[in-house]
């Protein structure tokens, strides 16, 4: 087991290198020169520009620049944000907890919806419940998050006036009011993301349970007199969850995509909305750093999923 975990972590290193190389290539191929302004400015003599370029190592071979860039990225030296007037790493650390809390809660909600519905659907395939659930899952899956978000705002904020549609980082209250304020404004972003994830997951769970429920060992469990509940929960769902974990891992990049959009709609001050704001403000260091952080998060989560997979399924051996 521990051997597997170590191996899996070691495998993640070349993946990270590969992705960083991809990011760097995009950056290096991009047109535009940070010194464009200096070059066109008649007051700056060309020698000064050349010296500056040399000092910053802009004319070094590509490989040297890549290694230096990667080192800086890994050490957390992400530069200075011109738009926010602070170091990029501090800026991102400030925003990251909000993103992780909304994403985590949404994912939890998705699983909470998908597990029972998917399982019940698979227990009675083609029943009315199954057909309604499958249709709803299909609809939920086809509703893009940006549209669901607007619909939620239209219904719950504008028509019913139940929930605020602008997320505030600091809420002017103390005690339970503070918690309530935070929860209330997070309901819609979490629901939008969570229901979208839930719709996708329901389909996975349903087909995974369907695959398992007809196997002989399930009949054996029933035949030896186990109650339906124990058969389903202990024997069917447990085994059906194994492939679902992999599918959840494959969904992770999509979750981050959804997070960027939801944060933008509800103005959640996370790194997704920061990414959009930085792009609009031409704040390159921040854009670069966020892309790097999101990529790293995707890698870490898929690593975690693989490890959970190994814990769930003792048959998995790595070779």
């Amino acid at each position, binding site marked *: 087991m521990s051997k597997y975990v170590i191996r899996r972590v070691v495998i993640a290193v070349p993946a990270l290198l590969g992705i960083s190389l991809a990011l760097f290539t995009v950056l290096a191929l991009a047109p535009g020169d940070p010194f464009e302004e200096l070059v066109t400015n008649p007051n700056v003599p060309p020698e000064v520009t050349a010296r500056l370029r040399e000092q910053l190592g802009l004319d070094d071979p590509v490989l040297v620049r890549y290694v230096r860039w990667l080192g800086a990225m890994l050490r957390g030296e992400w530069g200075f944000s011109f738009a926010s007037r602070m170091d990029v790493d501090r800026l991102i650390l400030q925003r990251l907890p909000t993103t992780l809390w909304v994403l985590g809660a949404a994912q939890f909600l998705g699983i909470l919806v998908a597990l029972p519905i998917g399982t019940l659907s698979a227990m009675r395939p083609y029943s009315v419940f199954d057909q309604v659930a499958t249709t709803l899952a299909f609809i939920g*899956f086809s509703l893009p998050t940006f549209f669901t978000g607007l619909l939620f705002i239209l219904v719950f904020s504008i028509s019913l006036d139940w929930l605020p549609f602008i997320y505030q980082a600091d809420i002017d209250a103390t005690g339970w009011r503070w918690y309530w304020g935070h929860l209330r404004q997070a309901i819609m972003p979490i629901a939008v993301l969570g229901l979208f994830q839930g719709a996708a997951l329901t389909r996975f769970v349903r087909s995974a349970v369907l695959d398992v429920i007809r196997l002989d060992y399930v009949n054996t469990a029933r035949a030896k007199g186990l109650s339906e509940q124990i058969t389903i929960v202990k024997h069917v769902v447990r085994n059906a969850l194994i492939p679902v974990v992999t599918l959840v891992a494959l969904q992770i990049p999509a979750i981050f995509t959804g997070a960027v959009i939801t944060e933008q709609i509800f103005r959640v001050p996370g790194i997704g909305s920061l990414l959009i704001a930085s792009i609009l403000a031409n704040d390159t260091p921040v854009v670069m750093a966020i892309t790097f952080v999101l990529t790293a998060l995707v890698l870490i989560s898929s690593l975690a999923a693989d490890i959970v997979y190994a814990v769930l399924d003792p048959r998995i051996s790595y070779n």
Partner: protein
Amino acid sequence: MATVADSLGSLTSAPRTSLWQESFRRFTKHRLAMVGAVVLFTMVVAVVAGPFIYRVPIDEIDFKSKLQSPSWTHPFGTDDLGQDVLARMLYGGRISLAVGIASMLIAISIGVLIGAIAGHLGGVVDNVLMRITDLFISLPGLPLLLLIMYLFRDTLKKLFGPEAGVFLLIVAVIGGLRWMVVARLVRAQFLSLREKEFVEAARSLGARPLREVWRHILPNAMGPVIVAATIDVAAAIIAESSLSFLGLGFPPDIPSWGRILYDAKDNLEFAPHWALIPGTAIFLTVLSISYIGDGLRDALDPRKVLGGK
């Protein structure tokens, strides 16, 4: 054996033969897929033919009639500049669907090429290509899409003009980030098909590698690829809408459905119709395509074809 011969015959000779007819019959039996096909067909006809019939300009500004609800003069209402939403929707539908189809074609071409090379050659090439595929799978799609748009937009605009430049960039990037599933599917199909007797027979009859791949393996590997292609169109439409919705896709004078939604989102209180119409259009298109994909999956599943006879 007879079925293998059948399918070979159907794929190499006459256009209308029992295998495709059987698939078509199977597809028509999937009720929701048929509904999806009808809805999608209607939308395509509307956006292709619509602008010739409904000749209201998309950019006629009229502040006197801004933010109006749907009425006889403006069936889908107007936006904050008094522009006719129906005209913009019809025009935008062309853009959205064109982006969907073009990105799908790019994704499928790259995917089939890489999958075929990996599956046919095997060995080191296969290993390297599959590592690259895994790498692309773990890239976060939208953030990377945004980064590339951010870095390359201005140059391409200068090179190809604002309209074509943005279109090319969006299509290339969406397609370039979505080929991985197809590559894996095609590779898996190649690995199993190249060991089949009919391929071996072709080989022993002297078929060159290119002919073996093109005439014998590829046609038989197309089923899952067609399904993936269908889903890719929907995914590309969503990707383009997301980009435009974030204000980083098409400019306002090219009103793709996502762009209309982006412009409408700040007027939700005063003109909900303006956001509901493009949102519903995207949703219906994606839902129809998903159901069509579902129907195609059932129709093209070779196990069902063999078992159903």
